[in-house]
């Protein structure tokens, strides 16, 4: 019995336990509201259902949040991801829209490559400001957040560029083996990031830099290079997310693509258990966090919550998520279970006391 209890404690003590509970509760609430919520059917050889929507729609957020996790792990923050996504989506769509044959795979690949290259440049720009010049991350990336929106609109001339390109569309709404392609991309990128950070020493080094930059420098870590790198990675992730967002609706809207995604991404990272102060980061937590956020948004639509109160609903859930996750909060309700130390036996103590 006691082993069962310790095993239970092990499960409930796991970092992902409470976020997952929240996710399940949200899904359950939806199912109660509409029993068919969980049903997934096969339509035209594609999986079809609200659950699939949630995962597909959270793919861009997952991508952005992955990059954001790394940035936050170094103690930084990247506000520019939304703008970077918009710029890259816009460039890709602009290039494709100018091709005689928008369905040519080559053209789409070129478009994506060009936009991706731009993303790397933008990431490098952030990286130089933060790591090279030493500007506070929030303000350094704020610059690109503001200017990047302008760039995106400059690219689209303030219009919505509509394209009609099947290969590009695939990125957002295509399917592979009945699964939405976006999910596969998100999985692949997750895998790459996970392998890159956890199979090499990169993850630990990032955590060291975030935990104590000066100590890491004195241990021979090239802190600046690492800091630079995470901003580039973050921008690259944002670019892929930007492709997905624009491919989803086959159009690039410089103003709307990725608007406020930085807040959602940071929220996902934080829900996932990574501290904004830097240090340890948890990719799996980030993904669960992103899923929670998307489920929340979808719930508002699926449960037809009045848009005027939707934000109140969001606020309640977010606060519930953080409360339930906070050990200090749970501790307050578990006082009576406080472990009591077994009293030491007198023999063990062998006090040798001398009167003062």
């Amino acid at each position, binding site marked *: 019995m006691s082993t069962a209890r310790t095993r239970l404690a092990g499960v409930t003590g796991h970092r992902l336990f409470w976020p997952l509970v929240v996710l399940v509760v949200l899904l359950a609430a939806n199912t109660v509201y509409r029993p068919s919520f969980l049903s997934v059917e096969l339509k035209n050889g594609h999986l079809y259902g609200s659950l699939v929507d949630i995962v597909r729609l959270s793919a861009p957020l997952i991508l952005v949040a992955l990059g954001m996790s790394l940035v936050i792990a170094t103690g930084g923050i990247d506000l520019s991801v939304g703008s970077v996504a918009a710029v890259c989506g816009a460039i890709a769509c602009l290039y494709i829209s100018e091709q005689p044959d928008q369905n040519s795979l080559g053209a789409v690949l070129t478009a994506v490559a060009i936009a991706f290259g731009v993303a790397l440049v933008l990431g490098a720009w952030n990286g130089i400001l933060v790591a090279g010049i030493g*500007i506070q991350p929030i303000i350094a990336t*704020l610059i690109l957040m*503001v200017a990047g929106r*302008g760039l995106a*609109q400059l690219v689209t001339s303030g219009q919505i560029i509509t394209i009609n390109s099947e290969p590009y569309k695939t990125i957002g709404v295509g399917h592979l083996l009945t699964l939405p392609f976006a999910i596969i991309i998100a999985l692949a990128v997750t895998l790459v990031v996970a392998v890159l950070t956890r199979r090499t020493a990169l993850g630990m080094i990032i955590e060291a830099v975030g935990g104590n930059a000066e100590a890491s420098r004195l241990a021979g870590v090239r802190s600046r290079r690492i800091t630079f790198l995470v901003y580039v990675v973050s921008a690259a992730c944002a670019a892929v997310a930007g492709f997905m967002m624009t491919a989803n609706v086959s159009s690039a809207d410089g103003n709307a693509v990725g608007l406020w995604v930085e807040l959602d991404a940071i929220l996902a990272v934080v829900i996932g258990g990574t501290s904004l102060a830097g240090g340890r980061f948890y990719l799996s937590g980030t993904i669960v966090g992103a899923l929670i956020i998307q489920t929340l948004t979808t719930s508002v639509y699926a449960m037809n919550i009045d848009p*005027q109160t939707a*934000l109140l609903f969001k606020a309640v859930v977010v606060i519930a998520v*953080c409360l339930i*996750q906070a050990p200090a909060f749970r501790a307050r309700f578990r006082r009576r279970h406080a472990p009591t130390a077994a009293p030491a036996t007198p023999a063990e103590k062998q006090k040798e006391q001398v009167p003062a």
Partner: protein
Amino acid sequence: MTTTPLAARGPRAWWRVPQRQVPVLATLALLLVMYGIGVSQYRAFSNIQVVFNIFIDNGFLLVVAVGMTFVILTGGIDLSVGSVVAMTAMVSASLLGDGVHPAVVLLIALLIGPALGFAMGCVIHFFDIQPFIVTLAGMFFARGMCTWISSTSIPITDGFWTSAAQERIRIGENFVTVSVLVALVVVAVAAYTLAYTRLGRNVYAIGGNQQSALLMGLPVGRTKIAVYTISGLCSAIGGILLSFYTLSGAPLIAIGMELDTIAAVVIGGTLLTGGSGYVFGTVLGVLVLGVIQTLITFDGSLSSWWTKIVIGGLLFAFILLQRLVGIRKK
């Protein structure tokens, strides 16, 4: 045995500014340079009223940024400010619309913000949850309250409000509004609080190292809750000023204001990690944003996207110079 006393550093010349204030002074100098550029480029820029307008138009931002300065000095962050500003304006407008006496409205409006701030502070402290997430929930909540109260903007016609809004306090040829005076009073009170009260010093202490502050026997919890309450109060005052400014409550007003506020505070030289910064710096930060905006309006030839790019560019130039001046001094 002789003990060599550690050689005291040479006496400081009276004109030498303390190291800590160099960044703020550098910022001030750069701000003046920027203003000078405006004057040399656009004729009407040199009107004193332009300067006053920057204060008139940014009075509420200034007040909110002052509150944010407290929070950031402790190493926290408050994302709820923009929404609380909007909520305060909405509540005032809707209560006034219902015919409630302005004094009562003022009181209620000034209580809601701090109450929410207090609640957030308590959650942050007692449950040890990251401020970012708590105040983000607060942001959703306050904005949700706005749309819940009304999805359309509510005009204010109350006599007290309109006279507060339209009263012009003449200074020679030019004028300022009541809001400017309120903002300056808030700045003065905040600067005094930070420099000369225990609460203020504890704010710096927590920002320096919360663990150490705790071990030094400082009231960490109380101070943390206090700063979020103060930020809430400043947001409430900012909300009132905004309702003076626009004579209405609109559910979508002040969206994204938290970023402007944070930007102003950080440009003013306050470290986002806490423990270092001045209210005066925040004033400069707000002015920098105001001057950038004024420069762009005066130019009047930029398209919408170039506006954003130029704002980003000016911000970059400013930060870069500020940083370079700072490095040289280090």
